[in-house]
């Protein structure tokens, strides 16, 4: 329905700036003679048609039409002497639109006061006024709003000037560009889990409602909207949302069925879930609540209410996750905490270790016998909970191997048996592990074999001069082939000489082993505990300067000859 199809604006023109034709596309002037309410619709239509080349988004175009319409409505309605002519000049200036509306009516004397009054009316929700919303809306939409009365303007006209954000639609895309965008979109979807901003999934078969609720949340969260529950379920394969808000009545399945389908997905039942309902239906609400949801919202839902519920659920779920994960990690860490006795068979031993917050997989096992201490330092590759889980599994597995080890079997034999066992075990094949097996004997004798593990460093002192060097020893990852063979090195250390064994987290962050060798040489004069502290501090200093992700780190400093 058009009310004023018979009315057109008497004179409307596009005013070109001097210069190139391209420059003229950025400025348009619309002139209205004897403006009236009845001609505003035609002006809005004219603006929409003329500004097609600007490719404004529908929302931006609506805001612009609204702005012009409101200003001219005031010019028609309020001045004692009505305007005979109004000129509207719209200029595209980068990402803004400059608006200049000039007229020849009686100037507004109280423009600023009107602005202030309208602002208060907008925010005072409990006392509704019939009028006054126009200028209030302009304040919301515009920036740099000024009013220059005729007596102060250069051309003798009143000028209302302001700027508004210019939002444009995407340009027409070629097939190649579309393909590239699709690839980017797929990549982003696949890596959406990397983003820190919580993801809210909104499901409602009404597109209007979806857009409204999305607008409530999108300033604070990533929001994905779906009109079909099956599409939402399919999207969860890429990334699980942090909160799901679903209408009880969906097109392809009802909300309760959707909730049950979600619970069948791994981890689905733990996601905070809110049902939306279009009306108060007690039976439906009872059925929904029985599915174990976190909240129930009856439409219409205000932006404050929706944000409040989502904020609460996000905070609470993070608290619970952190609490559960923290408790789980503490138990695992205490089980896997790398520790060796301080002395064994005339050796002094200092151990330092740190655990990555998100997981990691270092552990030490040892068996102290009458004439030797047999030990294993292991590092399960990977980060996070998976590595932690496999560390536990490996620790139990290796413990049984150590206990079954015969006294004549040394580190190389141990690794060969372990490697063969892992090779035939599909479970352990999933997560590789590096391993260092050692045997501390009396009189400074140590036997070593390594499987994919960084080699230890040796520090000797002669005539007050210390020298550190890396041991020339290597060995393949356990389980790579059916019959791995491992080199075994036997060293006999003099009293006070030291051996530094560490997991990959220590060497990888330090990167320059030479620097750590220098630290090892300088620490030779220190007691072993203080030397271990110094070496650990060197590692921490390197860690701070490094951008590498944190990993479990274990350091073992051995000194032959017992107490100094």
């Amino acid at each position, binding site marked *: 329905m058009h*009310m004023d199809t018979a009315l057109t604006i008497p004179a409307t023109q596009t005013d070109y700036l001097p210069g190139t034709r391209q420059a003229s596309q950025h400025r348009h002037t619309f002139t209205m003679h004897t403006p009236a309410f009845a001609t505003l619709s035609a002006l809005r239509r004219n603006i929409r048609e003329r500004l097609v080349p600007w490719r404004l988004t529908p929302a931006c175009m609506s805001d612009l039409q609204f702005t012009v319409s409101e200003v001219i409505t005031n010019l028609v309605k309020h001045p004692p002497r009505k305007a005979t002519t109004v000129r509207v000049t719209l200029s595209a200036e980068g990402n803004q639109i400059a608006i200049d509306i000039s007229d020849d009516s009686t100037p507004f004397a109280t423009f600023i006061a009107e602005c202030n009054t309208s602002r208060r009316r907008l925010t005072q929700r409990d006392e509704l006024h019939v009028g006054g919303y126009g200028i209030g809306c302009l304040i919301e939409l515009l920036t740099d709003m000024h009013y220059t009365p005729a007596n102060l303007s250069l051309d003798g006209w009143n000028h209302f000037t302001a700027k508004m954000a210019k939002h444009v639609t995407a340009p027409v895309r070629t097939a190649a560009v579309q393909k590239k965008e699709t690839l980017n979109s797929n990549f982003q979807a696949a890596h959406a889990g990397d983003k820190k901003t919580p993801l809210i999934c909104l499901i409602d078969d009404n597109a209007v409602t979806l857009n409204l609720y999305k607008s409530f949340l999108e300033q604070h969260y990533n929001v994905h909207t779906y009109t079909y529950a099956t599409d939402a379920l399919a999207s969860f394969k890429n990334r699980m949302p942090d909160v799901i808000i679903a209408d009880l009545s969906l097109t392809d399945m009802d909300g309760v069925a959707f909730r049950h389908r979600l619970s069948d997905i791994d981890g689905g039942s733990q996601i905070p879930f809110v049902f939306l309902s279009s009306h108060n239906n007690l039976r439906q609400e009872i059925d929904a609540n029985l599915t174990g949801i976190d909240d129930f919202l009856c439409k219409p839902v205000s932006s404050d209410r929706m944000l409040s519920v989502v904020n609460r659920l996000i905070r609470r779920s993070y608290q619970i996750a952190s609490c559960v994960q923290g408790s789980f990690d503490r138990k695992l860490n205490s089980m896997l905490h790398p520790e060796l006795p301080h002395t064994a068979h005339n050796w002094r031993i200092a151990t330092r270790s740190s655990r990555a917050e998100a997981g990691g997989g270092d552990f030490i096992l040892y068996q102290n016998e009458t004439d030797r201490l047999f030990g294993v330092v292991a590092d399960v590759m990977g980060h996070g909970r998976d590595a932690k889980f496999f560390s536990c599994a490996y620790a139990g597995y290796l413990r049984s191997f150590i206990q079954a080890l015969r006294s004549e079997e040394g580190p190389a034999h141990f690794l060969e048996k372990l490697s063969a066992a892992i090779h035939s075990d599909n479970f352990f094949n999933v997560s590789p592990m590096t391993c260092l097996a050692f045997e501390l004997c009396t009189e400074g004798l140590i036997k070593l074999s390594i499987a994919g593990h960084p080699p230890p460093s040796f520090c000797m002192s002669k005539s007050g001069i210390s020298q550190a060097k890396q041991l020339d020893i290597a060995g393949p990852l356990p389980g790579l082939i059916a019959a791995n063979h491992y080199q075994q090195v036997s060293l006999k250390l003099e009293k006070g000489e030291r051996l530094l064994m560490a997991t990959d987290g220590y060497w990888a962050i330090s990167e320059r082993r030479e620097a750590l060798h220098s630290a090892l040489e300088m620490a030779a004069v220190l007691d072993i505990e203080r030397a271990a502290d110094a070496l650990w501090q060197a590692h921490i200093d390197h860690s701070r300067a490094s951008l590498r992700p944190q990993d479990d780190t274990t350091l073992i400093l051995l000194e032959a000859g017992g107490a100094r």
Partner: protein
Amino acid sequence: MTLITQHYKLQKRDNYNLVSFAGELDAHMVETLSPALQLQLDAGCSHLIVDLKQVSFIDSHGVGLFVTLLKRTHQSRGRFVIAGADGQPAAVLRMVGLDDTLATYCSDKEAAIALLAMAS
């Protein structure tokens, strides 16, 4: 009973009135339709649904009309709800904060169900 005018359609149901506007609800349209509409509503029942599904544009006069109707329904202990607001009209309602004050629904059917549920 249904009353169809140039600018709106008024349907009088058992428990509520449904007014469906169409086109652009701006100063000119509000000035034109408001007196007749209020006269017709005075004779009707207290609950009112305003359907904006066919409305493509509203300005501050449109907002003012809603507030006028809201106050009238409240005075007669009735309820006032808006249905089908989308695009620019929905954005304006949000901008002036009226979406917090007025109950809004996706369709006139949803609004009618809610109205009856609230009244019962």
